[in-house]
């Protein structure tokens, strides 16, 4: 009986210890990157003008990533919020003026998996994105503005490769966003926004699929680890297209990216023995 009691007590103590160990939640810092972009843009919106315009674009982008508890921390979430502004002129003659600008936000969830190649990780999942974009053509009339607003669900994935160049740790990354379905706003062929404002919303919102809309985002970056933060350089390409109501809208942007990344929110690691699980790569503390 005594042996049984000792054994039971030992088991309870052991289980308690294990439970205690399990309850130590890992620390999942929010990886933050702030990017400044500048480059070229080419667009055509036949609602405004049948000709293409080209010019420059600048953008500010903030990226947040964090490991999720889901499936033993093998998932991460990523949020991006971006603001861009550009100015374009007729590609043919350099005359005319169209300004473009917008705000976009996306939330993605990706599963990450290691590969047999040392330092190479794959992330894959889905995202939901919202975009509000506006074009303003200075030709006047009742069609100077074209508003682009959409919400969409899509696929996203990244290839991340950690390596070193001499003593400098680097992380190269390629990420693609590919919206699949969604809803976007587009007035009819030559319907004025005044008529929409009067209340005629007929055929204004459209279900977006690859039949009438194709968007894609490509982002190649290299993070150069500088102690507790990283310097980011890269390239961002964005393609937005819609074809609806006999109107074509196409925008292609090529931007050079420079920014910085790290646990910018500030996490107290020194007074915490909890394990740290990062969304993207390790940063020295």
């Amino acid at each position, binding site marked *: 009986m005594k042996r049984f009691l000792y054994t039971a007590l030992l088991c309870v103590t052991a289980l308690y210890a294990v439970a205690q160990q399990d309850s130590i939640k890992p620390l999942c810092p929010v990886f933050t990157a702030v990017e400044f972009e500048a480059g070229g843009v080419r667009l055509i919106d036949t609602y405004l003008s049948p000709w*293409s315009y080209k010019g420059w674009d600048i953008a500010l982008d903030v990226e947040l990533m964090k490991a999720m508890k889901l499936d033993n921390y093998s998932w991460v979430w990523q949020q991006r919020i971006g603001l861009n502004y550009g100015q374009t002129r007729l590609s*043919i003659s350099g005359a005319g003026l169209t300004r473009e600008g917008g705000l976009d936000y996306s939330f993605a969830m990706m599963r990450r998996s290691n590969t047999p190649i040392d330092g190479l990780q794959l992330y894959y999942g889905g995202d939901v994105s919202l975009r509000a974009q506006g074009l303003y053509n200075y030709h006047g*009339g009742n069609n100077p503005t074209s508003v682009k607003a959409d919400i969409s669900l899509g696929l996203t994935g990244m290839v991340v490769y950690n390596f070193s160049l001499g003593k400098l740790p680097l992380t190269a990354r390629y990420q693609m966003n590919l919206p699949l379905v969604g809803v976007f706003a587009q007035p009819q*062929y*030559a319907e*004025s926004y005044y*008529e929409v404002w009067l209340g*005629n919303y007929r055929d204004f919102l459209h279900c977006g699929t690859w039949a009438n809309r194709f968007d894609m985002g490509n982002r190649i970056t290299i993070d150069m680890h500088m102690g507790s933060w990283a310097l980011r350089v890269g390239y961002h390409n964005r393609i937005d297209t819609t074809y609806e*109501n006999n109107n074509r809208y196409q925008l*292609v942007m090529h931007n050079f990216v420079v920014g910085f990344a790290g646990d910018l929110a500030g996490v107290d690691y020194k007074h915490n023995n909890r394990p740290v699980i990062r969304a993207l790569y390790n940063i020295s503390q």
Partner: protein
Amino acid sequence: MKIKSVLYILSALLLVQLQACFVDDDSHVQDTAKTNFNALWHIVDEHYCFFEYKGVDWDSVYNYYAPRVNDDISDQDFFNLCGEMLASLQDGHVNLASAFASSYYWKWFQDYPVNYDERIVHENYLNFDFYQAGGITYKKLRENIGYIYYDSFSSSISPTTLDYILAHFITCDGLIIDVRNNGGGSLSNVEVIASRFIDAPILAGYIQHKTAPAHDALSEPYAYYYRPAEGHILYGKPVVVLTNRHTFSAANNFVQVMKSLPQVTIIGDRTGGGSGLPFTYNLPNGWNLRLSASPILDADGNDTEWGIDPHIKVDMAPNAYQTGRDAILDCAIECIAQQQYIMK
């Protein structure tokens, strides 16, 4: 390693070349007179909304003008030729604007009496003593009739300003709203003013738009309504609206709405029309082409592109400047004084 590097570079180039797949490439288009002429013709062909209504054979117009265009033509001559071609649409809303000139179609008022002289009104009716606010000139006439002159619907009027003006006329026997020589402006200003003369929602008219490039591809008319200006002064006494051929575009729309109200009489000449909401497009050379793209119909579903007839047709006398009398304004004063406004 070399092969890998080449592959990486090729991939990057492929990504950059994606642009070519997604933005229609018009870099091969030359900025020549022929290109711009064809662009002009096609934009009108695909966006102008009154071909059917006016019975214009746009293909014939092309056949007539296209042979006259060659790439040696001067900018000035080319501009004049384009302006001449656009005049065949007989539309005051169609014009071409370049850095050196703008083309206009003036016939819609040139062949008619002027029917307005600001000097006569200011001197003999307002005695050079009047108020001006928000683009409106106003005064209480000696016959105890309010007079408002509004020269452009581009001039915004605040609800407060309109309250002050209507309060000023609250004891008058009636009100004259003079929109002669008003070339239009913003349709939202039409509603701002018209909503003061209704006490219940009214059907203001219908609006259509092109749904495709075909000439007859017009949407079903969409009904739009005006509601009384809640919380503001409403005016229910007799109203006379004065018009001439230079009452155009948004001013034409204002007359169209006011004409449907029972206490309103329209006096003067037929309005200039211009019922198409204009859109503007660039030509490859940067010139701007404006055209009627979206017809606005009256509450009975009729197009008013050619103008609106007044209830009482009056022309100013040819020697008005000598007599100092404005026959249209005199008629309006008499009409209100005798309460002879048209009851519908």
